[in-house]
């Protein structure tokens, strides 16, 4: 099974070519090229302000919301260009889900939180919606904790549960890719390890790109690691290699905690 998985893993999911991002006159990312494999976890690490979130937000075009942001280059998702005006952003965002640093459940019931995605995409069949909600909550490992109070507010959950609710909400629209921007940075150690376990399970079915400040976390959950510094992609490779045997001096300094 392990070998089958590694073989699968070599398939390409996202291909970034010469990507540059500008905020007004400030360039935040410089000529990034990078291939992200399917059904693996790719970690983005680097000091604060180096452009990790900016990079992540390119994949679901969330940078579109920032008027000053300008993106150049190419991003191919399974061979399809996702940058440019002709791309249907709604369809793209259905395929590429996102989990944010600050958990942000809607001030509605747990059920309504998860059902929101399918509903806005036109699903009306109540039974089907219930099925999706249960299924998504199970995938996010939250079902057992909330099955008796689906109709209470999502805001009443603990921080870790809220974050898993946000993961369930993202999974409910059946994405292929899951973007996570420091999903556990606001959580206690137990909730964090719960999220990490969950990521380990989810990668069987989803391609995951995760930003993290926590070196051990990157080492634990990811198969590939990309190290960014001041807008440049310094090093990208197998996680084990990046952490134990980095090619670049800067990477070594960062992963050994000498700066950042």
């Amino acid at each position, binding site marked *: 099974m392990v070998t089958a998985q590694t073989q699968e893993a070599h398939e390409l999911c996202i291909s970034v070519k010469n990507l540059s991002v500008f905020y007004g006159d400030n360039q935040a990312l410089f000529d990034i090229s990078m291939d992200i494999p399917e059904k693996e976890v790719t970690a983005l690490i680097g000091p604060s302000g180096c452009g990790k979130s900016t990079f992540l937000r390119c994949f*679901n075009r*969330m940078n579109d*919301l920032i008027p000053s942001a300008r993106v150049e280059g190419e991003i191919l998702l399974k061979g399809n260009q996702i940058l440019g005006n002709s791309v249907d952003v*709604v*369809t*793209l*965002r*259905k395929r590429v*889900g*996102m989990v*944010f640093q*600050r958990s*942000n*459940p*809607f*001030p509605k019931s747990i059920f309504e939180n998860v059902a*929101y*995605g399918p509903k*806005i*995409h036109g699903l009306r069949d109540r039974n089907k919606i219930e099925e999706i909600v249960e299924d998504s909550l199970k995938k996010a490992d939250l079902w057992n904790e909330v099955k008796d109070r689906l109709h209470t507010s999502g*805001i*009443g959950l603990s921080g870790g549960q809220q974050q898993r609710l*946000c993961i369930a*909400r*993202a999974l409910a*629209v059946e994405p292929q890719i899951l973007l996570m921007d420091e999903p556990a940075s606001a959580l206690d150690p137990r909730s964090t390890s719960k999220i990490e376990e969950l990521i380990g399970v989810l990668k069987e079915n989803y391609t995951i790109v995760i930003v993290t400040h926590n070196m051990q976390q990157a080492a634990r959950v990811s198969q590939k690691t990309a190290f960014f510094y001041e807008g440049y992609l310094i090093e990208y490779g197998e996680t084990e290699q990046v952490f134990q045997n980095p090619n670049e001096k800067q990477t070594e300094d960062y992963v050994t905690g000498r700066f950042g």
Partner: protein
Amino acid sequence: MKPHLAKKHAEKIFLGLALTALILTILFLFTLLWDVISDGFPKISGGFLSGYPSRKPSEAGILPALAGSAYLMALTAIIAVPIGLFAAVYLEEYANKSYLSRILELNIANLAGVPSIIYGLLGLQLFVRFADLGRSVAAGALTLSLLILPVIIIASREALRQVPKGFREASLALGATKWQTVWNQVIPNALPGVMTGCILALSRAIGETAPLICLGALTYVAFVPDSVFSAFTALPIQAFNWVSRPQAAFHENAAGAILVLLVLLVMLNSFAVFIRMKFQKQYTQG
């Protein structure tokens, strides 16, 4: 005197002045309230609330004025709240920050400060004469709507701006369109703030006399309005009418009418505070 001592004295003097100002204000307010209550309270009775105006002060009641005010407020709310909310949504969510939209914004802020009698003149020309609505409830409500729209727009924009960014991002990231996000997330979350703003605006409208007099609302109405096109009177107009009579007994009637108006205002305002408190929890927990 040492400089820090002088500073201390200045501080004490300032504090004293501020306190005096506060006490004076409260004193004024209480004198006014006392005056109204002591004159008006004995008047309040079932007969006063359900009676019609009369030449005899002791038999006169405020039913037509009360019904007129209620009718007016309901219609004003129906007209002004949706228009104000959607104007705010447009300005806040859709309008690009161009030169034109900035001029528009500035004008809305200015309109909120225009004296209400000007709106009365506008309403007279636009609704009573041009639209030929006559001196009807509809003309009155439309005029009051114009009067409070700027306030509603400003309050609604403030409420829309306070919706946490996370809700918008989460919705858009799920593939919702801009409109779906505004309709399902932004507006519901802004609604408590919008409603508070609207209620406060309405409570301004309910006390307005000048624009209605300007429109030519009748001061003597012996019937309850039965449609939006019927003539009407309102509580402040009724009070105004009674105060301008020479007989002292009518002045007591006026005090009674004002007291009823005050109670309505307090009720509206408490409702606004209630909404704010009830929904605040949602935000602080999120």
